[in-house]
């Protein structure tokens, strides 16, 4: 009795071992290409976002002291913009440039850099975490996004703030989006100043979004226009951001 079941178990174990080996050697890549399996993994992405939102509430990201600022701040992604209009503005210190705020707002705005500097400012020393794994600490200054959105006045259908950028990466314009929870978070600012100096081109002059509880690719550089939308579908490939469209990065980048 035991010997019989032992034999079948022996075969079962052999099959299990062979199956495991096969899975490891090629199965993972096959699963990686399977739409069904990917949607299962993406389901976990939604769970991850909801759990983080539940745990963090409206908590603030840690703010550091001046002594903690890192000796270097790596610049990643686009390090510059080729667009002729942008280059002309850059040469004039963005004196004649204005941020456009439109979409689902009561009052579309054109906000010159001087107007953004004239709004109440928030200064924060925070850690920037790249999705690749590195971190840098820098000091950022600018108006809260909430103040800019309050001036424009959101229509009730508005759900997302989309940031259209001047840089083009691999042939596609860069853009990013956040929902209103992050848009109205006190540390979400439109930074024009970094480490006590105007933002350089490498770091996204004239304006860079800071959304401190998410990874670096959400912090759009070279922000030209903020569009309020009801949905992300219908915009480029519909995933809410350049890297989300191009590589399948998570739209919510809290981890």
């Amino acid at each position: 009795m035991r010997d019989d079941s032992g034999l079948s178990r022996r075969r079962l174990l052999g099959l299990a071992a062979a199956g495991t080996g096969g899975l490891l050697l090629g199965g993972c890549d096959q699963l990686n290409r399977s739409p069904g399996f990917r949607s299962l993994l993406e389901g976990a992405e939604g769970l991850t976002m909801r759990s983080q939102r539940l745990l963090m509430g409206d908590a603030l990201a840690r703010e550091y002291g001046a002594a903690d600022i890192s000796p270097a701040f790596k610049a990643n992604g686009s390090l510059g913009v080729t667009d002729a209009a942008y280059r002309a503005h850059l040469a004039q210190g963005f004196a004649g440039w204005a941020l456009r705020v439109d979409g689902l707002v009561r009052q579309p705005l054109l906000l010159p850099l001087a107007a953004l500097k004239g709004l109440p400012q928030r200064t924060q020393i925070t850690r920037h975490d790249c999705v690749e794994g590195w971190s840098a600490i820098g000091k950022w200054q600018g108006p809260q996004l909430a103040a800019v959105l309050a001036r424009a006045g959101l229509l009730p259908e508005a759900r997302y703030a989309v940031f259209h950028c001047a840089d083009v990466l691999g042939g596609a314009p860069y853009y990013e989006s956040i929902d209103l929870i992050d848009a109205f978070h006190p540390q979400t600012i439109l930074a024009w100043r970094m480490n006590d100096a105007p933002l350089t081109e490498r770091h996204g002059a004239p304006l860079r979004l800071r959304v401190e509880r998410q990874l670096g690719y959400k912090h759009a550089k070279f922000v030209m226009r903020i569009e309020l939308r009801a949905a992300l579908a219908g915009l480029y490939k519909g995933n809410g951001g350049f890297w989300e469209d191009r590589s399948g990065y998570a739209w919510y980048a809290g981890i």
Partner: protein
Amino acid sequence: MRRHGWPTRVWHWINLAAVTVMLMSGLMIFNAHPRLYWGEYGSNAREYSDPAWLDLTGLSGRTAFPGWATIPTDYSLADARLWHLAFAWVLALAFTAYLLWLLIGGRARRDLTPSRSELAPGHLLSDIAQHARLRFPKGAAALRYNVLQKLAYFAVLFVLLPGVIMTGLTMSPGLNAAWPLLLDLFGGRQSARSLHFLFAGGLVVFFVVHVAMVVLAGPFNEVRSMITGWYRLPRERGEEA
């Protein structure tokens, strides 16, 4: 003889699958920036003045870990993160459930905590010597964990797995806002990333030794006991079949 309870057997295989996926997708994530730092920040050892304590660039081709060791095989940080952050749920939930079962039933204390006499240097040394000569406990003694097994399983369950999970959470800017204490516990985000890698390395070392011991102790009997719970006692020396 019955040896392993069903929660141990179920958790063992779920954990093996989850740790394997976490390790292989983790190596791909590491390839995106194959350098480790201590403290809060660290970005690029060569270009900037924030030196890495470990730089594995060029270990395999232009990157650190080769395609056969990573999920997916070809470079994709996005896909590796998709796998890693989904299987992290499997790993963490299965581990939490198993840990509760061990602690509430008193099993962690009874089966896994070495006694004072087992930890005496003489006893430890003689156990190490016996293992080194590949003489493993026979008869009824094989049903209980010996002190080296207890220490190894204790390290996995109470140091390496909790460590790898907690340092993983510490790398999340979202959870840093929710639980800033995590950053203080591990000495900063880049320290947590370094420790995450080291804890994972500890799990690999355990895996290699564990599999070697299973092979040496009789792989069929050992693997069967972890699947069905049924374990045939190794005969005492000199005892005939």
